């Protein structure tokens, strides 16, 4: 075994003698280090490996039979971190590449993970596994259904939206009997969203019909967000 620093030194001094190259090949193949084209991508690769080791990603993996979704979701989770850091150029680069290769559906899979909502989706899938005895293929189909319907089940509240508009938006999800839906609000849109949900709660519009969870926090770019997840108790 040889560590990565020693290995790099060896590459620097090796020249192209056959025996040295043979030694390098053997050492490289018996070790577990890789090399990216630059330090930024090496850092990115490390982070992507770390994401794979998280409990959240492993739980998602246990629900999904299509390997493509794993790759896209891993990138989505990476974007959610980059987003927190305000690293827009890197995010754009990933978005462009995914759109080019996997079109809108692929982009949406990745974006869902980047919203930070994967945890709720995984919890929903695991719940289906237990309640309905779904196997991994059924769960993959459920996930695909969420992706296909994402624009329908996810509401992004804008600053100009009034409390009444937000109430109507949530009521629409409830009346459509959406099995799950998501509300996202950022910055100045948060207060109206909180008030709308509180109002609907007082009116008992969703109590007994939906389980509600909400999280209000700030990302590392200091942008405040409020994200809410509603899961039907009838499904």
């Amino acid at each position: 075994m040889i560590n990565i620093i020693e290995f790099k030194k060896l590459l620097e001094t090796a020249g192209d003698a056959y025996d040295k190259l043979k030694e390098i090949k053997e050492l490289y193949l018996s070790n577990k280090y890789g090399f990216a084209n630059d330090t930024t991508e090496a850092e990115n690769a490390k982070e992507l490996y770390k994401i794979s080791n998280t409990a959240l990603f492993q739980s998602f993996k246990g629900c999904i039979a299509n390997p493509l979704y794993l790759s896209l979701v891993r990138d989505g989770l990476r974007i959610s971190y980059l987003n927190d850091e305000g690293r827009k150029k890197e995010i754009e680069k990933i978005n462009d590449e995914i759109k080019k290769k996997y079109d809108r559906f692929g982009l949406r899979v990745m974006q869902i993970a980047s919203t930070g909502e994967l945890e709720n989706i995984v919890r929903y899938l695991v719940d289906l596994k237990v309640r309905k005895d779904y196997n991994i293929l059924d769960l993959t189909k459920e996930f695909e259904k969420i992706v296909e319907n994402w624009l329908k089940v996810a509401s992004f509240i804008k600053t100009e939206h009034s409390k009444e508009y937000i109430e109507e938006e949530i009521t629409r999800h409830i009346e459509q009997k959406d099995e799950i839906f998501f509300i996202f609000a950022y910055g100045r849109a948060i207060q109206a969203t909180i008030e709308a949900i509180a109002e609907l709660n007082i009116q008992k519009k969703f109590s007994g019909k939906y389980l509600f969870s909400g999280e209000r926090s700030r990302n590392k770019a200091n942008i405040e967000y409020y994200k809410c997840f509603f899961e039907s108790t009838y499904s």
Partner: protein
Amino acid sequence: MEDISFDSLNDNQKRVLLKALDYNIDENEVILDKTGKPHLCPYTKRKVLLKNASIMPGSVIVMNTSSLTISEYITDYVDV
């Protein structure tokens, strides 16, 4: 999952490692396979230039570098 580390190489180090792994590099810095044909990235299906090449851990896999190709590689070879 396996414990894997990642770093970057300067061009000289990268040339030596690629040569050790039976690749060559032409005058335009395109990576060639051992038959002398341009090596194609297994994920982008495009030629790989030295400056954009990543060499994946414990393997002879050489690919164009992006967040997506790295993620696809992890799905295929590591996270199984």
